[in-house]
């Protein structure tokens, strides 16, 4: 069985922990509890019959990625950068943050995720996608669970290829 370390990062309140809880425990809570430091959990997914252990590190949100301790990223195979589709402030520095993450994890896989899609209408989502300067990997809703499994399964697939 292969094990991979995945980092969930992004600004505060974008729904990283909700994605984490939805993926690991199939649970969602409306209560907002800020993450202190980091929370680690795991879930196994199957890729072409092979079991992959995903060790997900849910890191406390920071406005800028250079505020996150770099040691958390060490040895990671992939990063999920989450932003909130309803809060432009959370994707304003997207390009700068992604450049920084590429520097600290060269060769690492980075997925850009727009979360809270359940809160916007289709045309509003299209406008945000248009405004964001980098290609978004997937749009998710941690609340309804839409695309959450797909996000992690796709990531696992890309990692063991």
């Amino acid at each position: 069985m292969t094990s991979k370390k995945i980092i969930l990062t992004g600004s505060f309140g974008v729904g990283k922990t909700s994605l984490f809880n939805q993926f690991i425990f199939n649970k969602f809570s409306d209560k907002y509890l800020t993450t202190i430091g980091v929370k680690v959990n795991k879930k196994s997914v199957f890729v072409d019959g092979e079991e992959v252990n995903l060790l997900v590190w849910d890191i406390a949100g920071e406005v800028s990625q250079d505020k996150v301790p770099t040691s958390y990223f060490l040895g990671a195979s992939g990063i999920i950068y989450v932003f909130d589709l309803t809060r432009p402030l959370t994707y304003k520095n997207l390009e700068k943050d992604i450049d920084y993450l590429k520097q600290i994890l060269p060769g690492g896989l980075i997925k850009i995720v727009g979360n809270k899609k359940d809160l916007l209408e289709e045309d509003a989502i299209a406008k945000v996608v248009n405004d964001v300067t980098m290609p978004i990997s997937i749009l998710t809703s941690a609340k309804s669970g839409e695309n959450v499994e797909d996000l992690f399964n796709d990531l696992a697939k890309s990692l063991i290829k």
Partner: protein
Amino acid sequence: MAESHKPIHDEVLLDRLKEILLWDDRKELDEIKQILDTRAHLSERVSPIIEEHLSALKETFSEDYKEIINKLIEVKLKNSQEEIVNSLYPSLGRMIKKYIGHQFELLKENIDNSVKKTFSPAGFKRRVKSFFTGVKESELILSNANNYTIQEVFLIERDSGLLMGSASLHTTFDQDVVAGMLTAIKAFVEDAFKKEKQELEFIEYGNYKIVIQTFFSYYMAAAIDGTMITQEKFDVEESMHDFASAELTGAKSSEVSNSELISKKLYEYFIKK
């Protein structure tokens, strides 16, 4: 002209008359003024009166003001409960620690005394061991009395926190998650205090301890339940180094990445014995 001089003459006469009549009164007034204006003189007169009142107050103070003071203290205590606890906590902690230390010393002394009185073969053997190793007999007895067990051992990739192998006496929690969280805690502590070339080596809560030894690309952590003396902690660290040099240094990468094989070796080395 003579008429104009007359009132002046009368005034002078009146002043002289006043002087004669009020001489004693003025003298007394001057003396009083001097007493009031001079601190030393005033103190000489007033002090005994104050002293007298003060000693009377001392005698009756607790009775007269008891209720007011009780009420004040009660209010102050109620309002600053947290403050009081905060200021007492460290002192109490130190006192308890000191007390326990003292009791421990007494215990060691008692053991020493009983050892001196014991002539059993075991006692003789212990004495010989103590003589040759330089370890006090009391410590040898205590070390036998100490009840600690290695509950779990983890071999973890240093950077990623991924588990390379583990062995447990009783599995309590997902070991992959424990390895990840341990790495996160370790990374946090080392990052936060930024002490060059220093690693987190020990975590303790209550009777539970985690002894950590970091190597180049991995680290080992042993979760221990029970009490252990410094020498025993050192022994566990030494065992980790022995295991690393015997089983990991120079091993083929396929062996090191074989989690099952590593776990089996860890079990035999740390848990089974």
